[in-house]
């Protein structure tokens, strides 16, 4: 059974409908990529799933429950965590405090210390800087902090909005290696990316969104074929 099942989702801001019909499923411990041109509603889609905005239609079944329209603080407690676009770490708070905030979303208050230790193992750089202001970290370190902060609630599904944004290529490789480890530990991952090549080769399947709808589903094999990638991205014959 799918862990996350999004069906005919409609979402937007005010009267503007950005996402008009998006469906996909995600199995436990798997990964899915979401690509598409700028401004197509990829972030809107993630915000609607995580509760940042209320969907206008469709359903989002997570772990057997419809979570469409629930509050973000309740959704994270069910086990679905979002790393928002631009990382959104609390730059005025210390690295330690940022991580501690991640604990608020835990269903089980026991095991908090273990969860923090686990994140320090996964992202050693966070231990070195734990008392520094998070705003002093480099972009890559901030991204690691944002991911660690979201993982501390031990989600079943981790949503990432453009984790590569503003990072140097070597750092991006590093971040995606960590994501691979995270998936290996059993967390399912949804990655929104501008870099279609990167995510298509990384995720088990990747959906292409354009005009508010899913236009194509790609597999890692398509990443090598830049022509099919371009066609699904920009539409045939354009």
């Amino acid at each position, binding site marked *: 059974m799918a862990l996350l099942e999004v069906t005919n989702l409609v979402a937007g801001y005010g009267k503007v409908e950005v996402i008009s019909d998006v469906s996909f499923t995600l199995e436990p411990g798997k990964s899915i990529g979401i690509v598409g041109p700028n401004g197509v509603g990829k972030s809107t889609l993630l915000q609607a799933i995580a509760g*940042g905005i209320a969907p206008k239609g469709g359903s989002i079944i997570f772990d057997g429950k419809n979570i469409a329209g629930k509050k973000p*603080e309740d959704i*994270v407690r069910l086990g679905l965590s979002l790393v*928002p676009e631009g990382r959104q770490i*609390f730059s005025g*708070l210390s690295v330690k*405090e940022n991580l*501690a905030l991640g604990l*608020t979303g835990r269903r089980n208050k026991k095991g908090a210390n273990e969860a923090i230790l686990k994140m320090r193992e996964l992202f050693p750089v966070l231990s070195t800087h734990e008392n520094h202001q998070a705003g002093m970290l480099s972009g890559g370190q901030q991204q690691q902090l944002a991911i660690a902060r979201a993982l501390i*609630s031990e989600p079943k599904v981790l949503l990432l909005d453009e984790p590569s944004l503003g990072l140097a290529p070597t750092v991006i490789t590093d971040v995606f290696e960590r994501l691979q480890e995270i998936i290996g530990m059993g967390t399912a991952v949804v990655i929104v990316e501008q870099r279609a090549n990167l995510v298509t080769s990384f995720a088990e399947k990747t959906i292409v969104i354009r005009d508010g709808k899913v236009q194509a589903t790609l597999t890692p094999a398509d990443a090598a074929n830049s022509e099919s990638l371009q066609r699904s991205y920009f539409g045939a014959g354009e």
Partner: protein
Amino acid sequence: MVQSILDAISLGGLYSLAALGLGLVFGVMRLVNFAHAELITIAAYTLVLTAQFPLALSLIFTVLVTVFVALLMEFSVYRRLRGVNPAVMLIASFGLSIVLQRVYELMFGALPRSAAVAPFLRGDFKVAGLSITISSVITIVLTITILLAMGYLVEKTSLGLQLRAASADFKTARLLGVRSNRLISAAFGLSGVLAACVALILVIQNPQISPYYGLNITILSLVGIVIGGIASLRGAALGGFIVGVVLSSLNTLLGNGRVYAYSWLFILVLVILLVRPGGLLSKGSELERV
């Protein structure tokens, strides 16, 4: 001279407590809760009306009543307006303020209500030949205690961490699991506790309670928040303190010219805002957020 300095410090401390109460709510809701004045007023009425009880009992009762009114404000008005334009919330807070003043007038009458609250705290004592009022010392001790307790709460506890995070970015805080309703209620509750503390100190000095009792101090601590930096609690506390100290000093220094104390105060505010438009404790980036 010593008494003037003590007066200045105690008035500064009092204003910083009032500013903290406003700053807490502003932090989580981006709301300048003008009706904070009415929290101070209801606390003052409660103190005066329960003056015949033992002081401890009267204090507990006052805190309970004030926190209840603060939570009621949040639940009945501000919760319905969450997410709307901050200007709408500000106007709603003016409306709420006026409504509550009328309610107090109906309940307690337009004439001042008075009673001796903690009469043993009036009068003065002598140190090295200098006469010092007990109330100024009590005010300073109380203020320092409350400020330290608030500092501990904000810097060291989980609730404090959530308050700081939500003040910086409420949306992200919620994504991490911070419960919005609970946190906003907590901020209002705390602002109620602070209002009760402010009222206690005010009432010791001036026990003539009218429906507008809390208005003056609230307006002046708002000024303090603006010059301190609206985005941080430290800034709010510092700004409130500065306004209190300056006002008290002006009253002493100007002698018969003290009617102009407010004018001088606002000239100072203008100068501070010209030099540091985001407030004394702002970093450049906070300016665009406000």
